[in-house]
């Protein structure tokens, strides 16, 4: 049995933040979940995927083709009265945002939770956008756990809150809350739960034509006001100490503040407001807090989200005390925090000396070779890249070729010795940007996209390329899995995880149905034949798609080499 459905109330397990979210959702009676994988959210989907295979979990889960679809699946399940969840990495929310904003208008029935996992410092991402702004943009309540126990508690509470307000609730984590383990005390799993919904047709509620949307927007604002009242008395917002120096923090930053206060032994001198219910902000609580201190340091990673709100509020109620944080230069808007940075800022405003640890002189250390991640030995992508390069060399195109790329292991083709990744925006951008380059230049264009990314958001751009007669060669690197995020299935896979029996959608069929005339399939390990194919299609001056089909070797080994 999956460890997350062992019913052991009171028992402690050392769970990842992401696992704690899953446990909280199970305890709340989650019935339907859908997701597209993305670091640092992936373990949520992975665990739900495994759990859905066990009858005791009484759970439906799917890996959807992208975050928008996943959110739609979860939204409809909620409208039918079931408890539902979707999770994604921060940039996935951009994809799903079209759903999100209007979903806030029409609202939900069964409790619905949306997890967004941000990635400050961009450990595995192309940007470090601060998704807290989505809560404000969509007007949705948001909870931010600081550790695994809170991740479990908040997820469970989020379902209740969602049902009370008839709004989806956002749980926002960051890499350092998703990927941190800590003891989590388990609660009971529900004895019964609703797994079959019933949708009541109420067009005045669920179809936001302008007349309905105008009404629903008003309802939304009323609900947000109620949410704010909830935030005022939420157990997730709490003040410790009664000193005159105020510190406000949320997420993992609150952990660094907690550690600093303990280490400096300055409990008496500070009032520490840990904010967990972070949107809408608890107005009265913040005003009380502002009144009780003579300055405030706001400790939050990325944007000055709480800091700006606090300043507006202080101005409104005419409390004129220093509010320090990003604008004052105590913290940066860049990257995740380092605990020493937080310690220094707090020691500074308290006028305390911190004695650093005694460190030996390391100036004699040589410059160390870097160890960037790279494609595995024997990875099929390597072979495909080499074949493309070989063909381009033979045709004399190499110097002026552009390689738009996409998101997956193959993005590592950026690095030497391959160096065949020139332009990237987001999931699926290889196809659309190839179109742009083909209009703007007379250069040869060879772009790369993975199988999962192709299904995620490559198809509509490919139809566009056919219709608008764009000229490039798209290489679909079909390795039968979503490798980078931990080998999740996608609709095209030939190599299925054990027990996974779902109809296959072959990429070749899709490409042909999109109207592409030059479509070829290669096995990249057959070097000569692959080069020949690329030579042929690259010599043609029109849109072509080459599907390089060979399983990810890591995955192939893991599933026992059975195809």
């Amino acid at each position, binding site marked *: 049995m999956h460890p997350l459905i062992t019913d052991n109330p009171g028992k*402690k397990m050392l769970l990842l933040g992401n696992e704690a979210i899953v446990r909280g959702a199970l305890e709340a009676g989650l019935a339907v979940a859908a997701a597209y994988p993305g670091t640092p959210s992936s373990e949520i989907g992975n665990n739900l995927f495994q759990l859905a295979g066990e009858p005791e979990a009484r759970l439906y889960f799917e890996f959807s083709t992208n975050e928008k679809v996943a959110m739609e699946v979860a939204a409809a399940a909620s409208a039918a009265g079931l408890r539902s969840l979707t999770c994604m990495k921060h940039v996935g929310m951009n994809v799903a945002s079209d759903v999100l904003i209007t979903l806030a208008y029409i609202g939900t029935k069964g409790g619905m939770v949306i997890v967004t996992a941000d990635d400050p410092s961009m*450990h595995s991402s192309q940007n470090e956008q601060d998704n807290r702004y989505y809560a404000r943009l969509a007007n949705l309540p948001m909870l931010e756990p600081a*550790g695994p126990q809170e991740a479990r508690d908040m997820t469970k509470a989020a379902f209740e809150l969602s049902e009370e307000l008839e709004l989806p609730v956002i749980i926002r984590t960051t890499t350092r809350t998703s990927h941190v383990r800590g003891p989590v005390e388990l609660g009971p799993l529900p004895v019964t739960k609703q797994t079959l919904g019933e949708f009541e047709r109420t067009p005045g509620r669920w179809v936001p034509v302008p007349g309905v949307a105008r009404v629903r927007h008003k309802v939304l604002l009323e609900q947000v006001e109620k949410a704010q009242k909830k935030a005022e008395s939420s157990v997730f917002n709490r003040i410790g100490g009664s000193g005159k120096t105020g510190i406000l923090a949320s997420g993992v930053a609150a952990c660094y503040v907690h550690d600093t206060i303990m280490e400096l032994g300055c409990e008496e001198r500070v009032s520490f407001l840990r904010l967990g219910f972070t949107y809408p902000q608890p107005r009265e609580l913040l005003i009380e807090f502002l009144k009780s201190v003579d300055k405030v340091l706001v400790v939050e990673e990325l944007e000055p989200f709480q800091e700006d709100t606090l300043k507006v509020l202080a101005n409104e109620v005419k409390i004129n005390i220093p509010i320090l944080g990003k604008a004052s230069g105590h913290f940066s808007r860049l990257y995740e925090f380092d605990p020493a940075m937080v310690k220094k800022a707090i020691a500074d405003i308290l006028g305390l000396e911190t004695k650093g640890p*005694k*460190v030996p002189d390391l100036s004699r250390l040589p410059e160390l070779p870097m*160890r960037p991640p790279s494609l595995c030995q024997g990875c099929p992508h390597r072979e495909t890249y080499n074949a493309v390069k070989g063909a381009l060399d033979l045709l004399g195109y190499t110097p002026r070729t552009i390689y738009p790329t996409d998101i997956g292991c193959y993005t590592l083709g950026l690095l030497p*010795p391959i160096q065949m990744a020139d332009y990237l925006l987001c999931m699926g951008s290889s196809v659309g940007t190839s179109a742009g380059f083909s209009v703007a230049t007379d250069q040869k264009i060879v772009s790369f996209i993975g199988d999962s990314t192709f299904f995620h958001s490559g198809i509509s751009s490919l139809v566009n390329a056919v219709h608008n007669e764009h000229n490039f060669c798209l290489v679909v690197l079909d390795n039968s899995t979503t490798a980078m995020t931990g080998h999740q299935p996608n609709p095209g896979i030939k190599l299925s995880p054990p027990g996974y029996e779902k109809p296959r959608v072959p990429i070749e069929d899709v490409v042909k149905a999109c109207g592409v005339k030059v479509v070829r399939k290669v096995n990249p390990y057959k070097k000569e034949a692959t080069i020949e194919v690329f030579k042929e299609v690259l010599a043609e001056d029109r849109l072509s798609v080459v599907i390089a089909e060979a399983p990810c070797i890591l995955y192939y080994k893991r599933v026992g080499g059975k195809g």
Partner: protein
Amino acid sequence: MMAFQRILFTGVGGQGTLLASRLLGETMMEEGFPVRVSEVHGMAQRGGVVESTVMLGGLEGPIISNGEADILVSFEPLETLRALPKCHEGTWIISNIIPIQPFTVRLGQSGYPDPGKWIAFIKQLFKNTVAFNAESLARQAGTTRAVNIVLLGALIGCGAIPVSPEHLKRNIKEKIKPKFVDANLKAFELGLAQVTK
């Protein structure tokens, strides 16, 4: 209450750093100590540097700042050097000495520092250094994949954290796939003996 302790595990994707830190974390939790373990998932696991931390004594933050690691457990000598700025004078350094060449070195873009020379350098600066061939011990135990458990054994052997070897062995039995348990128990013992001998 126990003192704050910050333990840094570092190695290369695929070496099993996460299993080692997790086993330690679970054992500490079962002993009733507050503990946080941070892990690296995602892109770095494709042959990049994989770090994890185990924080003891009620610390909530998962990251270790420069000079603040009390124990460094390193699976690879280049990564030991890279992690030295995290250490202070009294840091326990437990390090494997067998290199894994990064591809930047294989491509001739940079040179790999001479492990013998630099291990001697480390020993000079950090008196609590234990550096040895964990790979040969793991092989002796039955699988080179058990380098992580050899090093975990050495960590427990140095006596810096309040946990009994028996408890850890119990967890190895419970949490590692049955067919690898014997090799891993042996690896643990060999690592332990490396420090206590």
